[in-house]
């Protein structure tokens, strides 16, 4: 790999070595936003880990805390109003939340980097794209201008931007959405990071372009053995690329499973509801089984299980006692009091009809 060669030449080979292939461990992460209206508990004890070459999908709807989790891991949370109030994020065993800013900068970029959803607003409109990619090499590798620019061209070629050598001086607005996302990816992989966090990388793109970008990410991951955290709301994309999935709801992971297990037999009513509510391209279905109601207001998360007001199986215990993330099988966890039944394919007794939940009127 040419970039590894470059690292050796410049003597900047990573000093971070994963133990047993374990790159990232997030343990009991808690984040809150302190606003004038009150305190919103965006993340309430999220734990997961990531290994070399693995793709972990974090799946959730808007407001579930999936992007905030990524921002906290990257250390780019807007603060104030956002504050990490608990938990650890360990990279190769060392807690990055407790590090000095200076030390953290040696991780952010060279070790863990990120691709954002909206490439147009993430790129600087007044600098050429090549200059922006080259900045990574100048800042972190101390390269001179012309070497850095040559590296930028090489990267643009790697992410399949046609005519890279000519377009290196072009500005972000001169590229299409898909090409801009490729530039974002080029910047993110510039320093050969061990972990890449992709926050909704294809949400703003058309489906044929989405296919191109996902293919590129897969190739790059295989080539560099990167750990990939894919943050998305799209169950289709997840099914195509992920190894494991963490499903988030109201700032918690409600199900954590291998991708095949999860789609075969969801162990949480929310996951089950999501899978049943999406129309499928390969089938002409009947009425969609929608999840009634709305996700909770993060300033007033209901007591007990946060999903209980929308759950078809909710009983008294769900309203009183918050379910832990129980172990329900091999590498598989679910935060539901009835997870054991669900994972075996049995349905707990229905406590309300679906149509009673329709309407979604906020109380």
């Amino acid at each position, binding site marked *: 790999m040419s970039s590894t060669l470059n690292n050796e030449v410049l003597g900047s080979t990573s000093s971070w070595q994963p133990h047993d292939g374990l790159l990232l461990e997030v343990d009991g992460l808690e984040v809150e936003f302190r606003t004038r209206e009150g305190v919103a508990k965006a993340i309430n004890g999220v734990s997961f880990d990531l290994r070399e070459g693995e793709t972990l999908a974090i799946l959730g*709807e*808007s407001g579930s805390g999936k992007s905030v989790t990524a921002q906290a891991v990257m250390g780019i949370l807007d603060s104030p109003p956002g504050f990490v109030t608990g938990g650890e994020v360990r990279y190769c065993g060392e807690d990055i939340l407790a590090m000095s800013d200076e030390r953290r900068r040696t991780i952010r970029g060279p070790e863990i980097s990120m691709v954002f959803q909206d490439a147009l607003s993430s790129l600087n409109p007044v600098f050429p794209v090549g200059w922006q990619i080259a900045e990574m090499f100048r800042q972190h590798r101390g390269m001179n201008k012309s070497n850095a620019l040559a590296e930028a061209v090489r990267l643009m070629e790697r992410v399949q931007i*046609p005519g890279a050598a000519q377009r290196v001086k072009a500005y972000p607005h001169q590229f*299409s*959405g*898909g*090409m801009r996302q490729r530039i974002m990816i080029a910047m993110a992989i510039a320093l050969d990071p061990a972990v890449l966090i992709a926050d909704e990388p294809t949400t703003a793109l*058309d*489906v*044929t*372009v*989405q*296919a*191109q970008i*996902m*293919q590129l990410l897969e190739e790059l991951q295989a080539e560099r053995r990167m750990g990939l955290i894919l943050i998305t*709301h*799209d*169950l*289709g*994309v*997840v*099914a*195509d690329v*992920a190894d494991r999935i963490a499903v988030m709801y109201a700032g918690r992971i409600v199900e954590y499973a291998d*991708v*095949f297990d999860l*789609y*075969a037999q969801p162990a949480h009513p929310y996951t089950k*509801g*999501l*899978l049943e*509510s*999406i*129309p*499928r*391209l*390969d089938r*002409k*279905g009947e*009425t*969609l*089984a*929608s*999840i*009634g109601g*709305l*996700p909770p207001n993060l300033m007033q998360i209901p007591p007990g299980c946060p999903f209980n007001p929308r759950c078809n199986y909710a009983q008294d215990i769900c309203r009183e006692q918050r379910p832990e993330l129980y172990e329900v099988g091999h590498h598989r966890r679910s935060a539901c009091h009835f997870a054991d039944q669900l994972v075996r394919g049995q349905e707990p007794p229905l406590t309300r009809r679906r149509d009673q939940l*329709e*309407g*979604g*009127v*906020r109380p």
Partner: protein
Amino acid sequence: MSREVILEADNLVKYYPIRAGVLRRTIGQVKALDGVSFKLYKGETLGIVGESGCGKSTLGRMLMRLEEPTAGTLTFDGVDVYTQKGAAMRRLRRDIQIVFQDPYTSLNPRKTVGDIVGEPFEIHRDVVPKGGRRRRVQELLDLVGLNPEHINRYPHQFSGGQRQRIGIARGLALNPKVIICDEPVSALDVSVQAQVVNLLEKLQSEFGLAYVFIAHDLSVVRHISDRVGVMYLGTMVELGDEEQIYSRPTHPYTQALLSAVPVPDPTLRGRREQIVLAGDVPSPANPPSGCRFHTRCWKAQQKCVTDVPLLINRPDGRGAHDSACHFAEARVVV
């Protein structure tokens, strides 16, 4: 289903001028819509799919006469829409309504829900007598699954899905026969999206509405549509029953589009054929000659560069449906 045509578009064309210089002279044209024809039957849903820039939203606006056409005619129930004036046009507008994509910007934040849903009655005063308007608005709210007591609330007090319901209630106010849905669920979360799709289906069967359902999400379109039209760069490239388009697509663009949609089933991973198109959609200001897809098509030959393929009935293996490809051939991609 009765096959009575309610709306017929014939060769709709919309060019937007590109102006430059001090005198704002026209130096070119963006060919947003370049000859689109179709029929909409009573009570059916016609899905329109395509990627950004293909002209599907322009088409929606043309069907509402929010844009004047460069050429072409639109016939609603035997009446030529584009030649109507004044009172006759206003009368016609009752019958064709629209639901917009973005529930956050399509509702006036300074007005209450009652004002928003009731506004059509201010313009079309004879639909509901003044005294009965508030009650009618409450009925409409109830119909779309909102609490009628929330009539005095403002849009910001509602979630995205609820706001889309408000938009639907407004669209229903004048008892239209056709509703144009321009990406009505694409701004919504999946769990809420299903609620709105179900609501649209319920309303359709209740009132016998015909929908033109414009969306980029092919799965949602398959779910809701009876017939589907696929657009590329201002033209309709394939048009047929939902089953024909999804099971036996004959146009290469449709095939590529369908194959790119991820299916939520990991066991199909690597077993579905994926056609990844190279490059980007060309600029509509300077579309390719002949077949507009020829620059990205793997089947393209000299004929595709010179001759424009017509949208005509072409065999799809089991029967035939409309496709605009010289080398139309069915291929299973889903």
